[in-house]
Each structure stands twice: as structure tokens, then as C-alpha cells.
């Protein structure tokens, strides 16, 4: 074993330098030089102020905005820093609910949200992504069905015609990548920004 110590020591130091410093720092240099916008988190600025990242969802509570997925992320409790409390779309602490499919807590939560959603849209059946928490807690997207489902509520709150809002949703619906990969989706932040531009 002792005879192996010298090569082991040399190799772990060399590999740390090559794969742990040269590689990530070199890639950072290249990324910052060639693709700074992407490399820094695809941030969106309005009037010079960063309002978020196009890839990271944020919390929307107002009826004037389309709302995203449920977010199960937590953060430190202001009242007692040793505990955590629900902080939706906490982009410094990603995660899902991890509730089991047979959990009473999950079923109660979905029932409560589904009842509210139905009351906002003439009792129609609710798209599943509107009442389930995303895996990251930061899902920036909803399905086109989930967006269309919210049109009556948003249109009423903004005093816009439903047809006009539906048209904006259609403009912001992204199809599958290369026509086949993934699912059709609507980026909630970009959709809401577009709404604010026509009706702020």
C-alpha cells in the first residue's frame, strides 16, 4: 500500500488541478466570453432592473397575472431562523413536495386548489399541472391548456376581451423542440410581461 502512496498523491493533486480548476475555470472563461447572457442565468431586465430569469419561474398571486405551477420550496422562517417555512419559488433552495401519491396531505391539497380553480372557470375540469407542485419548485412553464384555463379570470381582472388574451397566449406557446421533443408549454413570466406591455 505504501508503494502506492506516491502515485496516489501525485494523481489526486494532478486531477484536482486539471479537472477541478483548469477545466471549470477555463470553461467559465470561454462561456463568459462567448455566451455571457446565457452563462449568467438568462436574466431579464426591465428599465435596468433585473426582474428575474426567463428560465426560472416566479410567484404570481394576483388575478391580473397568469399563475404558474404550485411551488413547494421553503426558506428560513423569519420568526424563528432555525425552522423553515413555505416560500414559493425560492430560487436559492429548489425542490419538490416529495409527497406520495397516496398521501392524504397531497389529496387534500389538490382538492382545495381544484375547487378554487373550478369556481374561477365555470366548473370546468382542471388541467393537472395547475394543481400539482413541480419537481424543482421553479418550473417556469405551464401547459397551453393550463394557460387557456386561466384566460377568463385574467381577462376579467384586466378588463380585456377573452379573445385578445387567448391570442397573446397563442403567441407565447412554444411547441415541442424540433417538433417532437418535450411538451408544448407557455413561459408564465414572458406571458405576463407581454400582458403588462399592452395593459400595465
Amino acid at each position, binding site marked *: 500500500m505504501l508503494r502506492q502512496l506516491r502515485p496516489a498523491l501525485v494523481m489526486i493533486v494532478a486531477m484536482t488541478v486539471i479537472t477541478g480548476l483548469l477545466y471549470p475555470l477555463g*470553461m467559465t472563461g470561454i*462561456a463568459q466570453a462567448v455566451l455571457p447572457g446565457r452563462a449568467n442565468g438568462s436574466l431579464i431586465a426591465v428599465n435596468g*432592473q433585473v426582474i428575474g430569469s426567463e428560465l426560472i419561474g416566479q410567484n404570481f398571486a394576483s388575478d391580473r397575472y397568469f399563475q404558474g405551477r404550485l411551488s413547494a420550496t421553503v426558506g428560513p422562517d423569519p420568526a424563528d431562523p432555525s425552522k423553515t417555512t413555505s416560500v414559493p419559488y*425560492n430560487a*436559492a433552495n*429548489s*425542490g419538490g413536495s416529495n409527497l406520495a*401519491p397516496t*398521501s392524504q396531505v397531497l389529496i387534500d391539497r389538490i382538492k382545495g386548489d381544484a375547487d378554487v380553480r373550478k369556481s374561477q372557470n365555470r366548473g370546468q375540469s382542471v388541467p393537472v399541472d395547475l394543481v400539482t407542485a413541480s419537481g424543482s419548485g421553479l418550473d417556469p412553464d405551464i401547459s397551453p391548456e393550463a394557460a387557456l384555463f386561466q384566460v377568463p379570470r385574467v381577462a376579467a381582472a384586466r378588463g380585456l376581451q377573452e379573445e385578445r388574451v387567448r391570442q397573446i397566449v397563442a403567441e407565447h406557446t412554444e411547441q415541442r423542440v424540433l417538433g417532437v421533443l418535450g411538451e408544448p408549454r407557455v413561459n408564465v413570466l414572458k406571458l405576463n410581461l407581454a400582458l403588462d406591455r399592452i395593459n400595465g
Partner: protein
Amino acid sequence: MTINGWIQILIFCALVLALVKPLGWYMTRVFSGEHTLLSPVLRPVEAVLYRLSGTGEREEQHWLTYALSMLAFNLLGFLVLYALQRFQDVLPYNPMGMAAVAPDLAFNTAVSFMTNTNWQNYGGESTMSYLVQMAGLTVQNFVSAATGIAIAVALIRGFSRASAKSVGNFWTDMSRAVLYLLLPLCAVLTVFYVARGVPQTLSAYVGATTLEGAKQTIAVGPVASQLAIKMLGTNGGGFFNANSAHPFENPDALVNLIQMVSIFAIGAALTNVFGRMVGDQRQGWAILGAMGVIFIVGVAVAYWAEASGNPLVHALGVEGGNMEGKEVRFGTALSALFAVITTAASCGAVNAMHSSFMPLGGLIPLINMELGEIVIGGVGAGLYGMLLFVVLTMFVAGLMVGRTPEYLGKKIEAKEVKMAILAILCLPLAMLGFTALAVVLPAGLASIGNPGPHGFSEVLYAYVSGAANNGSAFGSLSGNTPWYNLTIGMAMLMGRFLVIAPALAIAGSMAAKKTVPVSSGTFPTHGGLFIGLLVGVILIVGGLTFFPALALGPIVEHLSMIAGQTFSVGG
């Protein structure tokens, strides 16, 4: 299930298959020491490494020396990673001021990354400094993958050599795996990931003011460079807590596809390296065929379960598949496919939360890991795990016809069978043994998050994932406690080194054997009969060992669910 979902699954399979031969050809050249396109640049680097190490590049090692080299290297790697975590608060590249990691968590994490498990009892963006992510975790991502590949290559040499005393040189195999294979591919992948939106920066987290006026802190970091090796090296440890479900760690379905292909690429190609080195590529395709059969069945079941959705939710007037813990951009098809891939290989990255999968959707990852991740498997680990089952299969076949079994012209005798059984038995021992302890001890029970049979599945999943060196989790289990940090750490060590040691012993004894010529009594190991027998042995050994535990967890949960039963704490 939709046609589009299945087309995506087929695209994935076609891409992996298309890479098998070219990558297998390249890797064979690399590990045989032949000239490659990258040699002009990398040869001088190699030469310096070997000179400083005082090791001759062509110096052949006995299997025991090979094993000792590997152990010494891993031990030092563990110590470096442990120290980096303990001192991260005073080291550079810590813009968010992360505190030193607690000893038990640092131990668990260091073992986890050294063994290519990447079980994470922490959230990356809330615990680790950029220095630990780069110089600690990324390094172990590279070298633990290279270690696995080296062991597989050594075992292949055992089968391909005759009357030989040695199985190769660990230092050369490990260095070449990093320099010629992993590093160049990762550099290309990193640029691609950044172009699609994965961050690569050393700046502190970004403060944003949302449209509704709330403050949002957005974690960033050197993510892309770590993501590239995390997938290619089947490590699976996320930069972020949500792993590849995080939009920064997996921004769209194209990135998702490349990540999935990365997980399988090297493991699948190693079957071709095996075929080339033993002089008959059909032998490699037969192994890959057996892996493919188990894989496709798993994908079909998991996709069906997730796409069908939760009947308890449907009863509330909510339409659609099971989307709890999933991302819209991936939907049920890509989430189920990813889950099967990540547990077939020993990757453990996730793009959806497995704990919220349907009971049968979560059953498939469990089975994949319990079988020892021999379906493609971890880079290297999958192939040597599968070859252990091949030894067992040939033994069973020999028993049926009353003839000394042979594989590739080598007689399989008592020593090899004992070693194979030792390796195959240590997994259920660690997986079921620790689970049994944890579900009777208060320290184990206290961490369970979901009530009912799912709670049992959480504990089982943790030890299965640890011992199989996978690293994915039912995240509802609170693993960051002294009990779980310690016992999962032990399970990871058992699952790694108690498999590697017997595998290398078999390599050594196989290499020493003479080759016997093929006769009319030789059982051909490249046809359908062999594939069928191999799959049968894998399922019987794995199935019989684990069925009782699976019946207590996911199967009971499934039956309860279709009977309309839910579970609540204390209820």
C-alpha cells in the same frame, strides 16, 4: 401514453445504439495505448504524470496491486474532498459565505462522490461553496467514473488474456479515461449546455425584484461544467438540490435528451470494447441485448404508470397524468424515461421527484437498482456487474448439462463462482440489512416523511440507492441525520468495494487461465438462448431476493391506491 412519447423513447435508443460502435472503437484504442487524434496534445501531459508518479506507463500490475492502487487513490480522494468541505468557509470561491459542512454530512458526501454514488443529504445551492463544487465534487465525478472504467477494462483483459499474470496498470487506465475520454467530451458538452441556458459563472447569486415586487434570490454558479461530467460519468450529483429538474440544470427537452444519452453512452460502448478486446464483437452485442430487454420492459411499465396518472386525483375532477414533482417541459414521458435510465445506469440524476411517482412508477427504479444496475449500469460498474452475472449464468448452464462451464474459452471454476456470488450477495446484504435495522430503530423511523407503505419504500430506496451506488432518492426521507449519514455511507462503501474486489480477483484468475478451444459441446454466448438465460438468472436472483421487500412497499401502496385508500400521519 402517446405516440409522441414513444417516438422520443425510440429516438433516445437509436442515438445510444448509433454511438456504441464509434465510441467502442475509440475507447479500445485508448485503453490499448494506440495513437489517437488527441495523442499529440495529451501524450506529453501523460508523460509528466507518469514521471512524477514514479510509475512506468507500461508497467503491468497483478490484480492485487491493481486493487491496492485503486484503493490508495480513492482513499486520498476521500480525504481531499472531506477536508475541502470542512474548510470551505475559509477557502476561496465562496461568494455566498457557505459555512463549513458538519462532520457526518461531510463524511457521507465524500464517500458518496468517491464511490460514484452521489447520494446527497444536502441541497447544493444552500450548502456547498463553488470551490467544493469544482475542486471537490467535480474532481470526484471525473475520477470515480475513471475508476469504474479502469476496473471494467481490467476485467475485460482478464477474459481476453491467456496465461498472463497481470491485468494492466491502474494509473494508466485511470489517467487515460480522464484525459482521452471524459475531459474532451465534457468540454464540448459544457459549451452546448451553456448555449441552451445552463449558467457557468463564478459570480454570487443574483438578486431580482419580481413582477409582483417580491425579492427573489436566484442561485447560479459554475453549473454547466459540473453537469457535463455528472451525466457522462453516471455520477448524478446535482449542482442544485432539484438536480436535473431545476430549469438551470436542464432548461429544455433537447438538453434533456443529450443528458439521457450521456448517461448511457460510455456504459453501452463498453460492451463493444469488451467484444473488440475478446476478439468477437457479437459477445458484446449479446450482453447489450440482455440489457436492452430489461430496459425496454422497465420503460414501458414506468411510462404507463405515470401517463395513466393518479386515480385518487382523477376522482377530484382533475384531468391528466401524474404531474406532482414533474416539470411541464418534460411531461410524463420524458420524466418516466429519465427515471428508468438513471437507475438502470448508476447515475442517480433525476428530472422529476421519484418520491411522488406512482407506486409502480417508483417500483421500476427500485428494481433496476436492486438488480445491481447491470442494465448499461454505471460507467464500468455496469459491465463488471453484468459479467459477474454472466459467470453465474454459465455456472447454472453448466450444472444443467453436467459439464464444466466455460466462457470465451476460459473454464469457470469454483474460485470464480465463489467470487461472483460474494459480489452479488453483498448488495442485498447492505440493502435489506440496513433497511431492516432502520425500520425498527427510532433513529431510522424519525426521518420518514410519508406515512404508510410509502414510508417503508423511502427507507428501502435510500439503502438500495446507496448500496447500488446510484444516488437518486425518495426525497421525502430526511437523510441528513447522523444515523443515515453514517449507515448510507457504509452501504455505499460495501456496494462499491465489495463488488470491485471480487471482480478484480476474477480478472486475475481468468487472465492466468489457458484458453480451451471451441468444441461441439461449447455453449455459444452470442445468441438468443444465452441472452434469455442471462436475463432469467438476473430476474430470478434479483426477483426472489427482493420480492418480499417490494411487496411491503410499492406493491401494497399500489393495491391500496386502487382501493381508494390514502394514508395520513397517525391514521
